């Protein structure tokens, strides 16, 4: 054979090339997934919480009875926007959208605090108290037609978290995955 002393391993090399090529495709796909928000910050991640059931009738129906503190509003509309995918120690934003609500009361289970630290709430609530294993934040919304309440949260533990947030007696299920 060749007069050169070399420990080539061509069969293994060919296998390695094949694996490399598969991995390259995988890397490109992963980049697309990252762009879409598989690891947070993208359309795949940003989502609206589904209302589980309403204690005060179907609020989506026009002319439905407003929940607490409707102040004679035509129709109250509540939704929660949040990140399905978040990363540990990296701030995420959960936004409560309110429409035609005279006041707002957001209830967050205390167990939620095991995973998240609330960094800031904007606008700040005028009152917060704890009852039945929930932290209750109350907001005076005045006559604002549209209002957003921002919760800036810092995940402290990786893994899957889900829990129920209650906004003006409407229950929302938030299910999040925290990457390490």
């Amino acid at each position, binding site marked *: 054979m*060749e007069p*050169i002393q*070399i*420990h*080539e*391993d*061509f069969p*293994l*090399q060919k296998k*390695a*090339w094949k*694996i*490399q090529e598969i*991995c*390259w495709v995988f*890397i490109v796909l992963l980049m697309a997934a990252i762009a879409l928000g598989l690891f947070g910050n993208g359309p795949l991640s940003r989502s609206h919480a589904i209302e589980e059931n309403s204690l005060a009738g179907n609020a989506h129906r026009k002319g439905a009875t407003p929940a607490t503190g409707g102040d004679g509003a035509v129709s109250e509309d509540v939704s929660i926007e949040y990140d399905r995918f978040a990363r*540990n*120690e990296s701030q995420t934003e959960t936004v409560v959208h309110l429409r035609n609500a005279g006041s707002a009361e957001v209830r967050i289970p205390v167990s939620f605090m095991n995973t998240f630290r609330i960094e800031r709430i904007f606008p700040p609530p005028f009152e917060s108290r704890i009852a039945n294993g929930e932290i209750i934040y109350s907001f005076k919304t005045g006559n604002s037609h549209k209002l957003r309440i921002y919760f800036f949260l810092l995940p402290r533990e*990786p893994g899957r978290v889900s829990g129920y947030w209650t906004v003006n007696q409407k229950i929302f299920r938030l299910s999040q995955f925290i990457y*390490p």
Partner: protein
Amino acid sequence: MNPLVRGVVIYLFLLLLFRILGKRSLSQITTFDFVLLLIIGEVTQQALLGQDYSITNALILIIVLMGTDLLLSKLKKRFGLLARIIEGAPLIVVENGKPLEMRMKKSGVDEEDVLESARLRFGITRMKEIKYAILERDGEISIVPDKSEPEA
């Protein structure tokens, strides 16, 4: 997260990634490759340290990284196949002045790279004068000049 887990995860991830990207991926071919390497170092540093800037954490991580490296090198000594999987094996890319097209294409080496190495080391100017060009495990191309070829 435990510093041991952090260190080992980062170590193995980088090992795997650079293996996937190929030997020649970042072997400082251009200035920009070098800059990219610096940026990767910066990002890795943040992931390794997190919010913890204590000396203890730094020392722990250095020990973890060196320890992982030590352990892996012992394992590679013990199991030849593992070494070849992790490091790859040298590959002949030019034989008796003839470029081996398929091997070069697959390993991302082109004739220009070979000629560059030949110029740098031996002042060889033509492919004909190269007896062997070998893509080494670290991504360098080593050149064996053809002695029989009369020098011009």
